[in-house]
């Protein structure tokens, strides 16, 4: 990673100096030797195995120059890698999240098994390449594993750029994202007409729009699927906490509502990885634990959705 630091941002330097006093001094370690076996799904375009639970950064990693919160974020990343996670997703739209990731990767050492997923998000087609380069500097990575066109903003020129970058070996996978169901028709059109490795969509036990068309289309076209907002920004946790977890949740080892909700998402066969965001180490461990136990089958999934509807 050291060859990427020549372009280090001023904010990163500020963050590092701010965090120095309170640094948790997480030692650099050899992650692959300590990581537990977690359930993986193959990325259809290459067959590469991807742990089915990743880490989102929307809101949670946007902590600015706050040394305390930067160190907390690095601790979350450490726990994530220790528990077997790989994919971390961010965007230039997410405030300082990319800088926080860069800080965390610096703190944890260069051998982290991170699968770096980021986005291009600018309505000016000419700014795409510069934005991606800036994002790489903020992460401190020589190249991204996955680049996605964020919310279909200027998707045609950006996808052209991403295809060129992929052909040149500057990115491994490319894709598109949306978090809005009203754009699903356009999203489907892009899936039909463009060669994509990944799509990223919002999916949870309440928001199941994509089950009818997008997920079957992804399976049909051999496109990996990242599911964001599995807890709908904590709203589902708050909505169901205090409600009884059904006794049959133990059949697939869901010990609490978070695991119940997450297991619903990752048990869909089209989902390659979900990316719950959190600021807490115990929550990231709890999320990754979902990737080591049994998952509900199709009948149990229907039962889960019906139960949630009944609450």
């Amino acid at each position, binding site marked *: 990673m050291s060859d990427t630091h020549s372009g280090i941002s001023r*904010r990163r330097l500020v963050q590092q100096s701010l965090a120095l006093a309170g640094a948790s001094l997480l030692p650099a370690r050899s992650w692959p030797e300590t990581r537990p076996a977690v359930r993986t799904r193959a990325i259809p375009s290459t067959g590469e195995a991807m742990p089915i639970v990743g880490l989102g950064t*929307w*809101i*949670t990693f*946007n*902590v*600015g*120059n*706050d040394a*305390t*919160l930067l160190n907390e974020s690095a601790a979350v990343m450490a726990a994530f890698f220790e528990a077997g996670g790989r994919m971390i997703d961010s965007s230039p*739209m*997410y*405030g*300082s999240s990319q*800088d926080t990731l860069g800080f965390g990767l610096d703190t944890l050492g260069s051998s982290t098994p991170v699968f770096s997923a980021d986005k291009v998000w600018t*309505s000016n087609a000419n700014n795409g390449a510069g934005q991606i380069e800036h994002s790489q500097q903020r992460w401190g990575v020589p190249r991204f594993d996955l680049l996605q066109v964020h*919310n*279909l*903003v*200027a998707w045609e020129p950006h996808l052209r750029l991403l295809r060129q970058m992929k052909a040149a070996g500057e990115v491994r996978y490319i894709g598109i994202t949306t978090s*809005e169901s*009203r*754009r699903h028709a356009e999203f489907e059109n892009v899936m039909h007409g463009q060669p994509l490795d990944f799509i990223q969509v919002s999916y949870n036990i309440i928001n199941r729009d994509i089950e009818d068309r997008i997920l079957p289309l992804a399976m049909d076209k051999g496109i990996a699927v990242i599911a964001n907002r599995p807890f709908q920004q904590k709203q589902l946790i708050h909505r169901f906490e205090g409600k009884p977890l059904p006794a049959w949740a133990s059949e697939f080892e869901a010990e609490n509502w978070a695991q119940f909700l997450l297991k619903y998402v990752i048990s869909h066969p089209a989902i390659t990885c979900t990316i719950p965001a959190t*600021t807490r180490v115990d929550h990231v461990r709890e999320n990754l634990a979902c990737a080591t136990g049994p998952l509900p089958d199709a009948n149990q999934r229907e039962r889960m959705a019906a139960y949630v509807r009944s609450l």
Partner: protein
Amino acid sequence: MDAWFSYRLSDFILFSERVYWRLFDQVNTLAGALLPVLIALGCLMLVGVWSRHRTVQTATAFLLAALWISSAFLFLWHYYAPVNWAARYAVPFFLLEASLIALMSLTRQLTRPLMRNDPRLWLGFSLLAYALAIHPLTSLLFGRTFDSAEIVGLSPDATAIATLGILLITARPLALWLLLPIPLAVCMLSALTLYSLGTPEAWILVIVLLVILVALLTPKLNLHDGNDAVIANARDW
């Protein structure tokens, strides 16, 4: 542009409530020993707005302008912009407000006669006193520590509320309409932000906006009536 219209306000609130309040913690820490000085300067403004002495009036206005500048750079630019990219676009408006305050002071547009029975005067005084003395304590009221208190000159909301109060007390019509929009916009945007974050403090700013509305709808007093009600008249100077 269609893509922009597809976003909701909550899509632009990309930070948590905890992060938001810690920004004030950080800027107060940065201010450090200057914090009592800022509070003292705020209290000086409270005294300054009553004065009819030209120098004191000008000094009070320039002090207020300086507090807009300090709030812009110390809070918006240094702490808020890294978590909310939109904040940096607010900085020029803060500088514009500071410049207009100075300009209006130099052109004697911030010298309204003070009438004892003028409701605007008392509404303005209440807002200013609230911004200086009570708004910082809301952090305690809502379960936080004083470390994240919102201080005039650091917090945009507190600075805007203080400015609205001062304008109600001192501004002649031209100054009022030139200087009101930016602090009103600050209060509105902050209310929307805090509402999106789910914090009850949003309602404080809604109340401030209602107070301003009431003040603006209050019929003007006839300055020729009841001369004995005049506390101080700028034309004496």
